[in-house]
């Protein structure tokens, strides 16, 4: 697949190896040539030096090229294979859905009327016995799983609805875990709309080491366009009052989660999230335009065109205005640089699909997260609808059901083998789930190649302008990528 950077350079994305490299007409001819065509090219090409270089460069790559057509897909998983798999790779987090109620009516909420395949907001709350059973079960698996993966840290997340509508349960859960399992260093976290935070809640959460994610969509007008109370009153003023109070106590224990859409002005978001009294932007998402979603019906083709044009302008502006300054460009830094780094350094290069649980796409093993709903049923993830349960607090994880679920998911990857970007695919369950079944990739993934070209174009445009910028996500081990020796004094 070919794509162009902003400067007009052409690159070829080699899906079998998983990287892109500069291309030109000669390289393009050689990439797709058969032996007879190679001979013709060799006879007619005038620049013999380039011919030799590109031919031998492609020969080098061919030596490490995984043989895509020889990938042996593993047979369907059996229930008995699931338990050790989860012991080793799962159990990273339990998410307790402590309430299905919320005091806001955010327009894009997956539990709103905008999503027909998700449950709606209800007044259900989780009770303490259910929560205790879920936590005890998770801890028992975690303790057993330490023998398979000792490097894991237990993590408990509280989810809703708005989790603070059942704050009493959150407090009891935390005290229960800390009393019963004092030897475990549990990581607590939750996401809140921020409107119900109080001094007392701030203090409790900080005392118990919580990291608090506030949902903040940007400046007042932008935030209030989407995050509203039942009678359409915006929630911005309460959220920011509470957030700023929390930040004064411990600014490094909170962050902002932002959702944008086609009516968002990226320049306004960049200015807002760069303010010193706004929490550090941790996550940016666009609402999930999946099956059963009508949120995007409100946007016209013109809205989308204007948004894309503004984003392109924002990208150019960002690259020309000190893109290294994370504080001055909080939104642009996250949405352009961090996401580019994530794309560039994904684990997809030269990875083998041989024998993998998921030969294509990027879902996690069911049981990596365990989402527990108010009634004690276990689900794949908080973002997957309730039609895919994987067990419950009474009988534990259902390994047979998990095996079936994985096998059914894999059966729907009908077009992945021939996809030109399959090595880079990170799609997961949420892209394919219907009401209990999965949609085929041949239906869902039609626009992916175009989207990938846009992403790669941005990544390589950043790389041409400021190559070091792409190392922001890279950990200490890999500082060598910048070529600087720690002892070289540079």
């Amino acid at each position, binding site marked *: 697949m070919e794509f162009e*950077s902003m*400067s*007009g*350079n052409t690159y070829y994305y080699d899906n079998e*190896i998983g*990287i*892109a*490299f*500069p291309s030109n007409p000669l390289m393009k001819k050689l990439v797709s040539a058969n032996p007879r065509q190679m001979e013709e090219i060799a006879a007619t090409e005038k620049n013999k*030096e380039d011919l*030799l*270089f590109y031919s*031998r*460069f492609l020969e*080098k*790559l061919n*030596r*490490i090229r995984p043989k895509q057509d020889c990938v042996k897909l593993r047979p369907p998983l059996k229930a008995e294979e699931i338990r050790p798999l989860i*012991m*080793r*790779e799962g159990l*990273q987090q339990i998410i307790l859905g402590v309430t299905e109620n919320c005091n806001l009516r955010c327009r894009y909420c997956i539990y709103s009327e905008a999503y027909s395949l998700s449950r709606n907001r209800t007044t259900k709350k989780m009770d303490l016995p259910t929560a205790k059973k879920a936590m005890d079960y998770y801890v028992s698996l975690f303790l057993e799983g*330490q*023998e*398979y*993966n*000792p*490097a*894991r*840290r237990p993590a408990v997340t509280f989810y809703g609805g708005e989790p603070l509508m059942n704050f009493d349960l959150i407090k009891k859960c935390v005290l229960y875990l800390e009393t019963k399992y004092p030897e475990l260093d549990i990581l607590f976290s939750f996401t809140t709309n921020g409107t119900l935070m109080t001094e007392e809640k701030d203090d409790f959460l900080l005392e118990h080491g919580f990291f608090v994610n506030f949902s903040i969509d940007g400046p007042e007008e932008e935030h209030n366009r989407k995050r509203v109370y039942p009678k359409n009153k915006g929630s911005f003023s309460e959220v920011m009052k509470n957030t700023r109070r929390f930040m004064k106590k411990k600014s490094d224990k909170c962050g902002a989660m932002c959702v944008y859409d086609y009516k968002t002005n990226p320049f306004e978001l960049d200015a807002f999230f760069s303010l010193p009294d706004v929490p550090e932007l941790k996550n940016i998402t666009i609402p999930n335009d999946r099956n059963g979603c009508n949120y995007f019906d409100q946007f016209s083709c013109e809205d989308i065109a204007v948004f894309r044009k503004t984003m392109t302008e924002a990208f150019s502006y960002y690259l020309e205005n000190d893109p290294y300054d994370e504080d001055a460009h909080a939104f642009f830094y996250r949405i352009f640089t961090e996401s580019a*780094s*994530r794309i*560039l*350094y*994904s*684990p997809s*290069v*030269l*990875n083998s699909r041989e024998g993998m649980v998921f030969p294509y796409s990027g879902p996690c093993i069911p049981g990596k997260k365990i989402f527990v709903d108010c009634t004690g049923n276990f689900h794949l993830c908080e973002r997957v609808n309730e039609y895919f349960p994987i067990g419950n607090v009474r009988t534990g994880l259902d390994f047979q059901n998990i095996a079936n679920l994985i096998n059914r998911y894999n059966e729907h990857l009908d077009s992945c083998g021939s996809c030109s970007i399959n090595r880079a695919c990170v799609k997961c369950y949420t892209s394919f789930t219907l009401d209990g079944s999965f949609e085929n990739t041949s239906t869902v993934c039609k626009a992916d190649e175009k989207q990938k070209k846009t992403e790669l174009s941005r990544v*390589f445009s*950043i*790389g*041409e302008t400021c*190559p070091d910028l792409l190392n922001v*996500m*890279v*950990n200490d*081990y*890999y500082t*060598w*990528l910048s*070529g*600087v*020796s*720690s*002892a*070289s*004094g*540079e």
Partner: protein
Amino acid sequence: MYFRLNPECYYIKGARNGAIYDLIEGNVYALTSDESRTIDACEKNGEADPQDPFLRDLKHRIVGNFYPKKVFIEKLRLGSPIAEYQEGNPPAICSAVLEIGNECDRSCWYCGQSGISRSRGCLGCNIWAEDGTPVSMDRWKELIDELSRLHCMSILVKGGDLTRDWEMTRGILEYATEHCEKVFLIGHREHFSEDKLAYLENKVTLILQTDDLSGIGDRHSYLLPVDYAKSPELSGDLPKNVMIDMVSRTFTPLQPGSPLNAKKKIPRTNLFTFTHHNRLHPCLANSVTIAWNGEVLPCPMMRDHSLGNINDRKLWTFFRNTEDSIQKKYWNLSLNGLDKCSACEFRYSCSDCRALETAKTGDLKRKVLCDYDPSEGTWQQPAA
């Protein structure tokens, strides 16, 4: 014009000079300081002279190319360097050494009880003058179970003359082969009779230690170990699952003039070792040793570096995500973290033996068995 190295070619800086690593061809090109400056500027997208003979030579070697505009070169690599993809991952244990005995009637000059006297002493059968109670048969089997749960890829069984209690050795070997894909047994050549060799055939790979070439071949070699299958002239009548660990008095890195790392010994590179050595120690990483008395060691030769005893703790507790874990203390000790090596452009292809270095200096992070001075970019002259 601009000149950039190919995706598979990395420029690594040292204190004075640099080197180019070609991860597909395996070559490591040592550059002069002038060449290093040229490549350094090119890799920062500085303009390049298309007639520069050095750059033209690199193009001829398919190491880099000229481009009319600034380009971005995505580098070839394995895995992801982003921390979040690595957090919480289980430890990758490639090999576990189980020292199931500590008795032998021989008194080989190269045995561990005489001190560290050779390179790759870790491959020796070695006994040690140490206190302690031997680990029980049941506990060894439990350990093999624990290693199996940790997905350990290979087990090396060793510890003096293991034919003295052949029943115990057989019991442990059979249990190990049931739970692990690859099992090795290390011992001295003279301990293994024909019937024992026949018993072991197709069960385990045997690494036989010897300093006596008779019956094996008379070619002088210190390539250790010698793979039987590839060197039939050295093998005599040994079965196919046997490798020879040939020990020679004439070559030991602890003698003056025979450094472990020298100009002619820079190993070739490849995608795996380059990626591995960036993050991890080239030898200690992905390995653990359990001594005859239960002490957990980073290497069979590093007897003073015990992390604890498996009679007190389960094995997995040594791999917890804590500061005193074997990963944090030893596996992560990449050459980037060693004083001299961090300034050296060959640090991602080079080997290193911490057991030899610490025995020589008493310092976990010093490097003396190396002929190269990266601050000057010069090699010492070999001893006459």
